[in-house]
């Protein structure tokens, strides 16, 4: 039932997320793009559970849990970076280099 379109939407969402991570410099925006990629994957999980059984849907809960934890930690890190640098532009955060 609508497997093909669902997967297509998922792929498009994922690619938007990747491009967002690649081209944006604001840490918050990049973070949101990462969330977008996660949810694109969630969508494909749900879609494919029609074919492969319920375990795909169970996986989605795990992904959401991890994403929530990640959001907490990630936002805390971004907050710490902002306090330190007064900016969240990742172009300026390049201390760790060879």
């Amino acid at each position, binding site marked *: 039932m609508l497997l093909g379109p669902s997967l297509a939407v998922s792929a498009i969402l994922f690619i938007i997320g990747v491009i967002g991570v*690649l081209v944006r410099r604001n840490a918050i925006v990049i973070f949101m793009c990462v969330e977008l990629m996660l949810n694109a994957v969630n969508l494909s999980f749900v879609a494919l559970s029609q074919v492969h059984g319920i375990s795909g849907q169970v996986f989605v809960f795990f992904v959401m849990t991890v994403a929530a934890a990640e959001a907490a930690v990630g936002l805390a890190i971004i907050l710490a970076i902002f306090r330190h640098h007064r900016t969240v532009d990742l*172009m300026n*955060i390049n201390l760790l*280099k*060879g």
Partner: protein
Amino acid sequence: MSLVDLLPLIGPGDGQGPALGPVVAAIVGLPMLGFALNGALSLLRPAAKSWVSVIGPGVLLASFALAVRVFFALKGVWHENPDRVVLVTLWSWLPVGPLQVDFGFMLDQLSIVMLLVVTGVGSLIHLFSVGYMKTDPGYARYFAYLNLFVAFMLVLVLGANFPMMFIGWEGVGLCSYLLIGFWFTEKANADAGKKAFIVNRIGDFGFLVALFLIWRVFGTFDFLQVFAMAPAHLPVGGTLVTAITLFLFLGCAGKSAQIPLYTWLPDAMAGPTPVSALIHAATMVTAGVYLVARTNVLFAMAPTSQAVVAGVGALTALFAATIGLRQYDIKKVLAYSTVSQLGYMFLGVGTGAITAGVFHLVTHAFFKALLFLGSGSVIHAMHHAYHATHRHDDPQDMRNMGGLARYMPVTAGLMIVATLAIAGIPPLAGFFSKDEILAFAFGRGAQQPVFLVFWAMGALAALLTAFYMARLLAMTFFGENRTGEAERGHLHEAPWIMTGPLLVLGVLSLAGGWLNLPEFAHALGPVGMLHHWLEPVIAGGDRMAEAIGTTPALPHGGAEAALIAAAIAIAVLGLALGWNVTRRSALVPARDAPAEQGFWRVLYNKYYVDELYDRLIVRPLVRFSTGTLWKRVDQGLIDGAGVNGTASAARALGWLGSRLQTGQVGAYVIFFVVGVIVILGMVAWR
């Protein structure tokens, strides 16, 4: 169960001796044990001298006692079956494919002779050392080294194959180095040790090359197999056998101090005097003679090599004797005398008269050990006299001696016996052995006239030998005493622990000739005992010599009588000349002595050979090593291109890699995404 009862356990014909195994192992192992114990004592309890005095000579005496028992046991065996060789294989040492080398010992008539000489003379010298080294702080270390030396020397003479012999060969070289530099706090002594070691390396190179050649030709290192295979495997007089024997002789020239490698031996006198007696006169330096005697089959197959051996021997005998004429250090005279006498031995074995060479080896071990220990006794007395008055004159310089016979009659008497023996006055030991060598050299002259030249050189060297020995006696023991007014009263005879071994050696020097009496002296006792004894060992070489017609024809009748008369006349003339010249010359203590003049100066400075070697070899080598090898090759190539080059290359690569680490998260993500796409693409289009 006694040893003799155990002997029947030796299987007939197979030559395996399981019963003798532990005994032979003990003969070699006891000195090794002594080394371990004395070495431990020297490290942990340097003051425990009484223990060392028991262990050091004790292990040697025990070893000697076992050797005597083995000798008597085997004498019976060999009486019935002279060709039986007792092999004692302790374990397999190098089992590498076709290369099978056993850690094994071989007892035949030759190795028994060497075994008895090494342990017998060694025991006497160990006993002497107890007195001589009594006050030395390195007493335990000294006996540790001395024991180790004997252990290695026994490995050398008992080894059943070339590599075993090589272990002993290198081991005695090491001990020689350690003992020459025994008083290493003085740089000259340490340098002398180093010189001995380095010069011997040149000889060892020859020995090793010979070993490789032997392996290439025979595919085995076993003495018995090599000697059995040699006549069939090598053409007589061919290049290969000549090369093998000449390389072996290069090793001998190093170890036995022959021209051109003799220079280390006089310097080796820097060690304690008993060491000079044991290592640098009686045993180690005769290893080369033993090697030629052992490989007599190979040498018999190479007449050219024989001529080289005999020629180098004769030349060395003459050359070293002339230097001995004008030395003042009592030990230096004896050192050059040793070089000269070793030359005689090589003249003997080079002529093919193996028995004569070994005979002279044995008698020389007796009288030269006696001479060295006697000089040790003299030096001991002189040292104490100078020590008592805190005077810093050379206690070894004969110009500071004179008239010592009054203060040390036992030493003087025994030194006279040894002098007569080495000069060749009948019926002492040296007469018979030296005469035999010269007679054989003369006899071989019939086939190869060049041996007549060698004979003449040997005879002239005999004259010089008698001369310098008479000079030594006259300067040391007779005439006015030149030690000094205050010191004279402190001169004294050595304690009994030192004179005792001297007495035994004196008896041996007197009677050593009876080991191998020549035909004309048959009235004195059994003729040619040593020759008959060694016959099974040298039979291979003798057969070969007969086949190719190089057996020396001993002169008979009138010629023989003339030779003997000449030998005696030479000895008497040399002694008389040496005595008269020395007694008439004005002798003054070393500090007042005028500089040497004319040719005497050349002799006094040993023909400047050391200086020549220094200019021609040592200094160019040092220059090459410093300028090229050190500065260019080591610092430039190895340090520069090798070590630092590798480091620079690693750093350059690291720098390249570090350019990828920009610190920009975005850049990393791009790499990551590109990587994922590439991998997914590979999976999809595989």
